[in-house]
């Protein structure tokens, strides 16, 4: 079980959160101009990272806010939490 630090509520149990998948996927500015392959890439293709992964979470049972989190998919270590619209922190590992 993870102890997830909500940017507003502080550390809460993982049970209170829902997972929102990979973060920082920007909707294309003009979807009409895209090829089917590019549109499919936007809709469906996601990274399957082993290691530090930027992902979205929502504090569903608490303040109901979305936020971003950097989590190691191998160790589950949470290295950063930042608000929606925020920039991901620079990687400090080597």
């Amino acid at each position, binding site marked *: 079980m993870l102890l997830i630090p909500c940017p507003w*509520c502080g550390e809460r149990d993982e049970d*209170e959160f829902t997972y929102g998948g990979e973060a920082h996927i920007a909707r294309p500015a003009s979807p009409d101009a895209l090829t089917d392959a590019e549109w499919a890439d936007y809709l469906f293709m996601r990274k399957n990272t082993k290691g530090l992964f930027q992902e979205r979470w929502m504090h569903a*049972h608490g*303040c109901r*806010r979305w936020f971003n989190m950097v989590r190691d998919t191998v160790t589950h270590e949470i290295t950063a939490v930042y608000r929606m619209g925020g920039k991901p922190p620079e990687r400090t590992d080597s």
Partner: protein
Amino acid sequence: MVEVLPRRSALEGALEAGTFGAGGTPGLTLSERRRLAIVHVAGDAGDPAFTDAVRGRTGLDLPIEANTTAAGNGRTILWLAPNRWLVVCDGEESAALETGLRDALGSTFAAVNDVSQGRTVIRVAGARAPDLLAKGCPLDLHARAFPTGACGQSSLAKINVLVHSVDRGADGGTDAPILDVYVARGFALSLWEFLTDGAGEFGYTISPMP
């Protein structure tokens, strides 16, 4: 002609006053707080016009810090989320509170909604109150982490709840700790069954419906 339906508790028929469970001195008391006016307020915490209007109507400063409350004059404001609060009044008509807040806010960018009918408030009081809630709630309910005046939304027996730490007995309150559990009306009976079932080992008293 609008027919005004009488307000009925979601626990009517289920809440039976008396002492139950393990023998000896009951470890806690369960009761329902009834006839509360509960109004949901949304607005920009950084806008002085908004905060001043709420202060003008309630006499309380909006709690800006997460998971805190402001209380006084029989009123409580609970922090729900950034720019979201619950104003709770005992002994005031919810319609009067709602329209009063709406009038005070005027054209300020804000939303006010009376949710009194949609919430049931169960008061869990007594030495074992935190132990009972801890059976199904991941919140840290220790007095150090959840002191008097704290509040937090979480799940209790998989049900969305808002827990308000009314009194942790720091100043020698007799019934302390007192924890109020706000739950959506439709889940109130289910939660009530969870609480009464879980309280059996501590022994508990149910106060009659006021």
